[in-house]
């Protein structure tokens, strides 16, 4: 199987970076949740904090890389207006082509009632996904700034978890709609 340049970027944006983000999120959440008084020795705190800094840092970096590659590399290919105002060049197609971009294809409804995938799915995904790196960066900076002090400050720890989970929710909206839309009208 050979991937085109566009398919490769779509895989990097959605699968590679998305998987890294998901792994880092799981580790960061588990590490932060169990960062409680009486559970870890002073030596253990050093080891735990290093992993937390790494997990949160990777999560923030991959979140930025995901939205930047998605918006500035993959999205322009999706939204090209190739088929004309009436999407005439999409007629009879089963998939997007060089004359009918994925957006054209979805809005043309040539393969069923698909326009909602753009008007609702893509319109929500392309915007809300940008909340993920913002929230992940603030969560990372909070963990970096307070460090082991988070052990004794339950409320602050919970506030970081709220940022972490809210960022993850935004990423899930982006990831899930991205996967579905790429299934309906793949970038190739």
């Amino acid at each position: 199987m050979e991937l085109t340049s566009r398919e490769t970027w779509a895989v990097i944006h959605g699968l590679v970076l998305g998987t890294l983000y998901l792994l880092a999120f799981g580790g960061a959440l588990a590490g932060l949740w169990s960062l409680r008084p009486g559970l870890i020795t002073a030596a253990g705190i050093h080891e735990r904090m290093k992993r937390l800094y790494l997990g949160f840092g990777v999560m923030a970096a991959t979140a930025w890389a995901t939205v930047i590659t998605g918006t500035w590399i993959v999205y322009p290919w999706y939204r090209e207006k190739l088929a004309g105002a009436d999407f005439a060049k999409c007629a009879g197609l089963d998939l997007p082509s060089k004359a009918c971009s994925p957006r054209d294809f979805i809005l043309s409804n040539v393969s069923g009632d698909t326009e909602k995938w753009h008007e609702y799915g893509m319109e929500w995904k392309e915007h809300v996904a940008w909340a993920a790196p913002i929230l992940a960066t603030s969560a990372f900076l909070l963990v970096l700034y307070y460090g082991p002090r988070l052990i004794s400050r339950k409320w602050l720890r919970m506030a970081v978890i709220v940022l972490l989970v809210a960022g993850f929710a935004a990423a899930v909206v982006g990831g899930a709609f991205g996967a579905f839309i790429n299934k309906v009208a793949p970038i190739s």
Partner: protein
Amino acid sequence: MNAEGTTDMTTTTTAHHDEEIAPELAELNLPDKPDGPGAAMMISAGIGIFVLGFLTVLAEASTDAKTWLQKWEWGVGVGPLAGKTTIAALSYFVSLIVLWVLWREKNVNVKKAFYIGLALGVLGAIGTYPTFFQKFTP
């Protein structure tokens, strides 16, 4: 007056007693840190998301705004999304730096900062929701 004994959002005194709650921290000899930078991280996240939601609604409501936001794409083909997301990200980083510098030595009420950031973030998230922002289409 709040739990920290202050009436304003900020104060220059710090009053954390981490070792009393988690004795294992005593061995680490951690210096006390003011909450100002932490509050800056929370509020700036809310500002960034609020700006994103606001610009999403604005681009839908105004053709002029949409055209201006599209100029941020530098010919790449991103459309107005380029302006919305770039300005939102810049708003986040600039507000983070400004608030961090302003509050770097102050003990800010971090709970109040969290709720301000949360309110801004929720408003911003609503602004990015298609069913909401498409109501502003002329």
